[in-house]
């Protein structure tokens, strides 16, 4: 077989990778040991970080891409895919992560943005990207830039699911509102939400985002994860919620099982028993104005 005929990094290959994550839980980890715990619990992928969002929030200062050594060690430890975060607009961090062999880059508002106007042109990469969004316009702008997967922004590092709920309901509601509209009405919507017309039309027709849509930002318990699935998420990211919990092993396993049984309250009751306390967290209302991570990104 002529290997020159292999087509790498196509939209189908990038979006296909995201499809394989559906129905799964992606967990933030900062060490190989944590990565092993996540894999053992049944995570579909891990997000390799220098610090979980709760600690990034606490530490303050400029948050950047993780040390490549940490990312490399985690890649070498697990068999499941490894993702890592690059700053918004920092295409060189993304190139470094791609060179390391990271399977997906999260262009993330959890890190300090590197560009006040532009996101990374993700179409130029072989590695697929996931990006955060709070509403349909933001989601479609990211997809237009080449994102292969969308996640709600929520409010990372809080352990308060309310913002993820808000963003998921916002996106789902906006998609529902597109149904029944004529093409000219959809063009008007596209102008209002600052999104490309063809993506708005495609979304209206499919009645869902054209790429996989995960929930993220504040999920801390099995019930939170199930809630997000009930609201239509294709899967969940759990950041600080696992390794800031009293018993990470139990919490990780319980959240994986909760995502698989999200529509079965009796089973969820069993799964939630004795998992120990969730992360302490902070109510999203208590975040001072201007310090909310979800405000980052354009």
């Amino acid at each position, binding site marked *: *077989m002529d*290997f020159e005929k292999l087509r790498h990094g196509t939209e*189908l*290959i990038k979006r296909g990778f995201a499809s*394989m994550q*559906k129905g799964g839980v992606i967990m933030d980890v900062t060490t190989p040991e944590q990565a092993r715990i996540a894999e053992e619990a049944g995570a579909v992928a891990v997000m390799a970080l220098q610090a979980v969002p709760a600690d990034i929030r606490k530490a303050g200062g400029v948050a950047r891409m993780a040390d490549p050594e940490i990312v490399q060690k985690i890649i070498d430890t697990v*068999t499941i895919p490894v993702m890592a975060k690059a700053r918004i607009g920092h295409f060189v961090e993304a190139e470094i992560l791609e060179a390391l062999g990271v399977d997906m880059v999260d262009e993330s508002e959890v890190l300090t943005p590197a560009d006040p106007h532009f996101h990374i042109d993700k179409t130029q990469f072989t590695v697929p990207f996931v990006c955060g969004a709070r509403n349909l316009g933001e989601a479609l702008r990211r997809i237009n830039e080449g994102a292969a997967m969308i996640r709600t922004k929520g409010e990372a590092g809080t352990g308060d699911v309310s913002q993820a709920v808000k963003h998921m309901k916002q996106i789902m509601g906006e998609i529902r509102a597109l149904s029944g509209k004529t093409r000219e009405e959809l063009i008007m919507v596209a102008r209002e939400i600052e999104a490309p017309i063809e993506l708005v039309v495609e979304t209206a027709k499919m009645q869902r985002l054209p790429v996989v849509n995960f929930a993220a930002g504040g999920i801390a318990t099995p019930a939170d994860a199930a809630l997000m699935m009930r609201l239509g998420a294709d899967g969940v990211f759990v950041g600080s919620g696992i390794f800031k919990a009293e018993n990470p092993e139990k919490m990780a396993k319980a959240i994986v099982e909760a995502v698989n049984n999200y529509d079965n309250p009796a089973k969820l009751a069993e799964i939630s028993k004795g998992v120990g306390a969730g992360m302490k967290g902070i109510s999203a209302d208590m975040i001072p104005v201007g310090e909310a991570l979800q405000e980052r990104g354009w």
Partner: protein
Amino acid sequence: MVFFMKIGVIAIQGAVSEHVDALRRALAERGVDAEVVAIKHRGIVPACSGIVIPGGESTTLCRLLAREGIAEEIKAAAAKGVPTLGTCAGLIVLAKEGDEQVEKTSQELLEIMDTKVNRNAFGRQRDSFEAELKVEILDSPFTGVFIRAPGIVSCGPGVRVLSMLDELIIAAEQGNVLALAFHPELTDDLRIHHYFLDKIFNC
């Protein structure tokens, strides 16, 4: 009473809706009335005339298939001759033996096919690719979508090799069981789903 045939897609995780859609479209093309069901829990597999194990993360799939009690049901069904299709992670799940990566994570493979697999034979996501493939059962090339794809490194005499790429077996069949390293459900080409449906309706 109308006999309603059921085809089950294991819905633990991964490209479930894509397989459900592909099967429904293929059934519609044939004008056949059969139900396609997504299976998350035990108790449904025994009622199915065909089973699909989709792509996803094999480590996660194996864990949850065992925890949910579906693993034993699939083994029993496949042993009874129920047509079973595994794609990508599904090819790993069906195998008898894994590589050291599979061993490392102590995945419980279903051991339905007499095959030995390499979990990420084609590398990480940056190595993922599309390519035109020659598949024994099809008369023209098929677009293979390989995502962190596995490969079969060796197989027993009862296994028929349907396609190879760079020394690795990427499609194989053992009686009623069909395994693919790539994802036909991510393309619009339904020929492989039709081949699988032929197995169901001709048995």
